[in-house]
């Protein structure tokens, strides 16, 4: 199906700007190619999109529904609006929900200043959270020799799950439980340090948008992420 879509050239409008694209491209990628910024959280270049965070929702003319830009393909004649007041309002409230869900304390966080959740709050002008904080009591797993997992800062974007399964091929991470009780786990919800499948490659550390996974020995503000995953994804090939 995708090979036929890839050969189609479609034209569409994003925020009034005329854009040309291949039929197998998402609204997000076409927007970014054309210098239009759509905010995202769970999206990560090089990983499969899952449309989970709902931050990248956009309006498409003629439909009452909103669409996740990361996982919606462009179609001929589409008119997309990416930054209406309604969208801005929704994005802010979704961020408020995320901040209220777990324990995000920036001042003491190793990712302070390099955190995508924090950056998103600044970008969208979120100054305070109107919802009560849930203050869940969550675990910190420091059993791994090099890394730490801290559930308190996890936003369940599943980047770690995807990078480990899709790029590293180890599938150490997954999500257990469901709803508000969902948690990122390694193996059979065992201590990460005891994992038999982890290769200690560190990809999960570098795709984590917050500091739910970070390197040991870093103190507040020191955890800076490297981005090499999209390159790895692009260069993947079957040898011979």
């Amino acid at each position: 199906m995708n090979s036929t879509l890839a050969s189609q050239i479609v034209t569409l409008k994003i925020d009034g700007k005329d854009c040309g694209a291949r039929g197998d491209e998402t609204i997000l990628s076409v927007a970014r190619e054309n210098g239009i910024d759509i905010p995202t959280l769970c999206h990560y270049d090089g990983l499969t999109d899952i449309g989970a965070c709902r931050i990248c929702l956009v309006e498409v003319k003629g439909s009452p529904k909103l669409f996740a830009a990361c996982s919606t393909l462009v179609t001929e004649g589409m008119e997309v609006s990416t930054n209406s007041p309604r969208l801005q309002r929704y994005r802010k409230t979704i961020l408020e929900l995320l901040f209220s869900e777990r324990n995000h304390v920036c001042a003491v966080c190793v990712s302070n200043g390099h955190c995508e959740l924090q950056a998103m709050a600044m970008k969208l002008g979120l100054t305070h959270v109107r919802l009560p904080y849930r203050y869940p009591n969550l675990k910190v797993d420091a059993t791994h020799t090099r890394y730490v997992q801290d559930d308190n800062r996890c936003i369940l974007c599943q980047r770690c799950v995807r990078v480990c399964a899709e790029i590293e091929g180890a599938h150490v991470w997954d999500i257990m439980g469901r709803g508000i009780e969902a948690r990122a786990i390694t193996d059979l919800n065992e201590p990460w340090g005891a994992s038999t499948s982890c290769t200690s490659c560190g990809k999960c550390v570098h795709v984590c948008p917050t500091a739910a996974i970070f390197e040991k020995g870093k103190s507040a503000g020191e955890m800076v992420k490297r981005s090499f995953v999209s390159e790895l994804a692009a260069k993947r090939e079957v040898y011979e």
Partner: protein
Amino acid sequence: MTAEELNELIEQEVEANKLFVHSINVCVAAGCLSSHADQTLDALKKEVKAKGLDKEIKVKGVGCMGLCAAGPLVEIRDASNAAQVMYQGVQGEHAEQVVASAGKQSVQSLVCDTSIPFFAKQVKIVLENCGLIDPERIEEYIVAEGYRALQKCLQELAPTKVVEEVTKSGLRGRGGAGFPTGLKWATVAKAQNKQKYVICNADEGDPGAFMDRSVLESDPHRVLEGMAIAAYATGANRGYIYCRAEYPLAVKRLKNAIKQAERVGILGQGIMGTTFNFTVEVRLGAGAFVCGEETALIHSIEGKRGTPRPRPPFPAQSGLWGCPTLINNVETFANIPPILRKGGAWFASIGTEKSKGTKVFALAGRVSNTGLVEVPMGMKLREIVFSLGGGIPDGKKFKAVQTGGPSGGCIPEQFLDMEVDYDSIAKVGSIMGSGGMIIMDETSCMVDVAKFFMEFCKSESCGKCVPCRVGTSQMYDILCKVTDGTATPEEIAMLEELCDLLKSTSLCGLGMTAPNPVLTTMKYFRNEYDAHIQGKKCPAGVCKIKAAQEVLV
């Protein structure tokens, strides 16, 4: 099995039945079984044998007769299959009286009056065989015109004609949103792919709805026939029935039906002497409401966590293992054989302009006649609740009908004269859903009901998307504060804001519809919310309001 063999089988069955003067049918669907209908069936069989009547009277287990509240139900029919009498609450001890009454004076103390509106006003299409045939014998289904529609399709109709007929019938999906079935079939039929699948959604998750369960337990072959016709029409050769594990009897009867159909060559390779192949497998759910959503259901069949994914692409384009997949629910498939037998035009002549045919409703809650009824679309809500349902028991006052489960809403008294179809229910803020109708009287607190459903959505949310995962949790917390009398007007405003957010931004139908019970109760029973917040009182006396000092501490 060829057409001749099918006819032969019918003749044999009819011949064998001729010997009997009477049949005593005992409902052995789940409702009556929980009233120990199995013991009643055993006692009747023993009694007939003891009296030496086993050549004249046939005692058999049949499917649901509808009035679960009066179970176990037993019906006596004569050789021409005309009903003599229906008995209610029949226990083992009544066996002697019941058997003795066959063809004679009925036992007055046990008679269940079938002239009451509950029975008399029903129009049965989906349930036409329920209560009449033994669900564990394919022969009985075949004699009742079963598999004739499939035979007709294979022999006389091209696949496109079958799709046309379904389109003409105006049938809409009976699982929730009411999407036109013909359109869905046409999309899958058009998809260019060698491998396609047909899935029957038997994950009846709406609490308060049990029609799919009843159909599966009472007439499983009808669903298989509907699926086989769909497979033929769309070009699929494999089918899955995704059934709730909470329905063990339905699973057992389905598996049995599949085995029988394979044995006689109605499922398998080269069906009825044609080149059409179709096999069906049952897959068990494991207790996840969200798996009623198409893409989550597909993930579950693939052995994964039942989380939905964004649509498009729709399953009709890319579904199970990436192949075009048709998903319909049990009641939808059950409508297919009669539509193909009698024609789409016949079906379209029943019901309202935009909602054709009949709908099975499950009446439950504070209503006298709890059970299943099948009525033409467009019947007035008042008639369903007060005439068929027999009204509210114990002299209590009607308050609301809850339809559509956690995705639906509460319909108040002012809409009782509404004609029930997809669009009219949607207009008042609820949904048809799978057809559950929970009737509530003055003893129910509507805020408590909204809280009940929000707890449901919160714990059934898959946790993938943020609005549903965190939003349902926050909304539940606010509703808890309303019911204990500590909520503030600001919190109510936030509740309304979150309703709008979830409706617009959630990834799947579960999150998008989760606000419906809150929105409808806030709209129609605002006084009850106000009573809790300002009056610190629960009018129905259900909620435990915190005393003022407690709040201060």
